[in-house]
């Protein structure tokens, strides 16, 4: 069995973790890899913490659910608490540096814990709405699971219809992706 990269992304309803997962797995598809993505969905339409479980590999992915992620990302305080169970000794745990009051709740057993200023960078350097693409960049940077090129292609595929109307959006998204990658550069996560 080939190596499977396992990614769990968790955030509040509006934070767009599911789109990140979708684009990411589509990029993997474009790359000719196998991917499996399953959202964790609850009863509420909005308001709950939403988790995306993503697996990418060179071969068919055996099972949809995993316990421990290679990389686990949490974008809100509630998300930090919810995903603890998916962190193991091999996990890189990533959370947004702006989340307050979770010191107690950070996983104790992770291989590495990274607080990245994604929200800040998005808000200040780019635009709040590309926060999630920035996160996607960070995940790609940390895992190298897909190439930047295919990631852009997947974004294009998904948001192309929007880019047609406002071409500056494409630029903004691609920059967010690159900034995201930069955020984890040199953090020695691999």
């Amino acid at each position, binding site marked *: *069995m080939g190596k499977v990269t396992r990614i769990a992304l968790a955030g509040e309803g509006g934070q767009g973790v599911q789109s990140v997962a979708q684009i990411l797995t589509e990029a993997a598809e474009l790359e000719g890899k196998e991917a*499996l993505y*399953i959202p*964790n969905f*609850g009863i509420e339409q909005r308001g709950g913490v939403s988790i995306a479980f993503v697996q990418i590999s060179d071969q068919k992915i055996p099972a949809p659910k995993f*316990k421990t992620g290679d990389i686990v990302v949490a974008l809100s305080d509630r998300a930090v608490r919810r995903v603890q169970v998916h962190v193991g000794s091999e996990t890189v745990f990533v959370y947004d540096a702006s989340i307050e009051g979770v010191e107690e709740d950070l996983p104790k057993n992770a291989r590495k814990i990274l607080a990245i200023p994604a929200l800040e960078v998005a808000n200040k350097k780019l635009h709040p709405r590309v926060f999630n693409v920035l996160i996607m960049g960070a995940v790609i940077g940390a895992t190298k699971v897909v190439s930047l090129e295919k990631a852009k292609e997947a974004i294009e595929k998904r948001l192309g219809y929007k880019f047609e109307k406002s071409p500056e959006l494409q630029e903004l998204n691609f920059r967010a992706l690159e900034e995201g990658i930069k955020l984890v550069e040199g953090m020695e996560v691999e």
Partner: protein
Amino acid sequence: MNDKPITGEKKVFMTGNEVVAWAALAAGAEVMFGYPITPQNEIMHYWTRLAPKYGRKFLQTEDELSAGFTLIGGVLAGKKAFTATAGPGNVLMQEPMSMAEAMRIPTVAVIQQRGGPSTATVIYSQQEVNLTCFGGNGEGLRVVYSTSSHQELFDYTIKAFNTAWKYRFPTFVLADGYQAKMRESLVIYDPFEKMEMVEPEPFVGKPGTPGVDRKPAHLRNAYSVEEELYEALSKDIADYEKAVPELVEHESFNTEESELLVIAHGVVYRSAAMAVKELAEEGRKVGYFRPITLRPFPQEQLKEAARKAKQILVVESAYGQLYRLVRENLYGADIPLKTMFMPGVGITPEEVREKCVALLDGKEA
């Protein structure tokens, strides 16, 4: 309007619900009757978007009772029709399905199991095994395929139409919330190019004036005396028993070499298979058996697979629904049975592996 939704083969990456919609289209389903319920909703969403392009129809009914009974109506009028539901909707669906069972009306229902009992969760489960195999006030003369991947969801949804129309028993594709909502890759194809597809036939509304040119269809499910029912039922049971050998399907691995046999179905089987294969590669004496048809159950095949086993582990996201099937079908054997019951929650390969190792090492009684 293009009549062929798919030509040739095509690799795609989609959710299970989308897969079902495509499979039904590909199989030539002409109309879907349904009522919303999570996690099967997107079957209807994709269907309502795609169907009009291929001249197919849709009706959203007032509840699952109506979805089941309009489905029956559609089938009686000669259409390849289907429905999809889950959880409490599956409970209600038993009423129409019991009528289909009694009247030998070929129906196809895709069940995306969710947590139970009652409303419970919208997520995932394997707790509708009892219900789907034996729901209704009858003997469970049905066919239930338990799928584990998107490829199977596609293949068996197509197959379900053929099975239903060939044997005239209500046919179910039993998947679950994970399969419904996850995305993975599969190859979709035009089944008409690959296999013989069974075509539907009208039960009512055939040409000619009844009583003049032909006999009228007088279809019923009520009988006045016990013996009349017994006669009708005996015929159906005989037909069912006769079909069993043609219907049963299973998959197994390493059963010749294994001392520990792991039994699982559906999506849980994937976790079990991964754990077992890993362990087997590591040289441990472990294999698996996976029923694909839960009803009829591959009894002979299970017995054969268990011949060498010193212990058996049943793994399921339910509290003993598969386990009871295994015990019943393995009656006569006395291999110790171990269990891993996680009603309503997913099971990971790691968890299965851990349990297997404990059992192989004799750490768990």
